């Protein structure tokens, strides 16, 4: 049997973010496309000037990156080569995740009331 390396919080937060993403992805994939608006720079920046849409997009960005990257981490740890390699991989994944998140924030926030 494999040794369980992924801890409680990783398991728990994966489910909490997963539940939020059920809502978030339904808005992202169903509500927005069915709203009938064409995706242009104008329509997107108009939507993002609304504080609630901005908060929604940032929350989706954060939960998506956490869920996706923590998922990749758990898959890698399941078949991990060695504890040292695990640490490097974990730090690398976290680093890329944070960079992506702050890049997204840096892009999204200026649209507020632009």
């Amino acid at each position, binding site marked *: 049997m494999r040794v369980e390396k992924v801890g409680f919080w990783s398991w728990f937060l994966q489910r909490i973010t997963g539940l939020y993403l059920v809502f978030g992805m339904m808005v992202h994939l*169903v509500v927005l496309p069915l709203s009938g608006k064409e995706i242009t720079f104008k329509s997107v920046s108009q939507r993002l000037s609304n504080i609630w849409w901005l908060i929604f997009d940032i929350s989706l960005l954060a939960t998506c990156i956490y869920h996706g990257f923590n998922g990749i981490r758990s898959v890698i740890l399941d078949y991990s080569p060695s504890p040292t390699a695990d640490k490097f991989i974990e730090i690398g994944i976290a680093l890329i995740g944070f960079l992506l998140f702050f890049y997204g924030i840096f892009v999204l926030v200026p649209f507020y009331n632009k």
Partner: protein
Amino acid sequence: MGWLKDLKLNRHLGQWAFTLQRITGVLLAIYLIPHILLNSAALIGGDKYYNDITARVQKFHILEIAIVVGVAFHLFNGLRIILIDFFELSRYQKRLLWGAGFFTFLMFLYALVVYIPKILG
């Protein structure tokens, strides 16, 4: 590869669901990176650049159908896992899996309705 061996040893629907959950999860996480980078670049670039980039990406509507189906399976099967974990419903795992498959199929039909007109138009 461990997961291939698992699939060979446990020929149950649940093992397939586990494997598919992993594959869709990893693929979607990888897709997330260019998705965020491309949309960010498009938003930074402003009006003309944005519309140019989105017009180019729209050529890949067939891939978008696959992405919607991948998200749908991962979402509904994930919901099944959460229900089983939190409410101790492992007795109903098979029935829940059929439910997840049914809703995934609905989302596939939805994706066809949304994207086929775009592919043709």
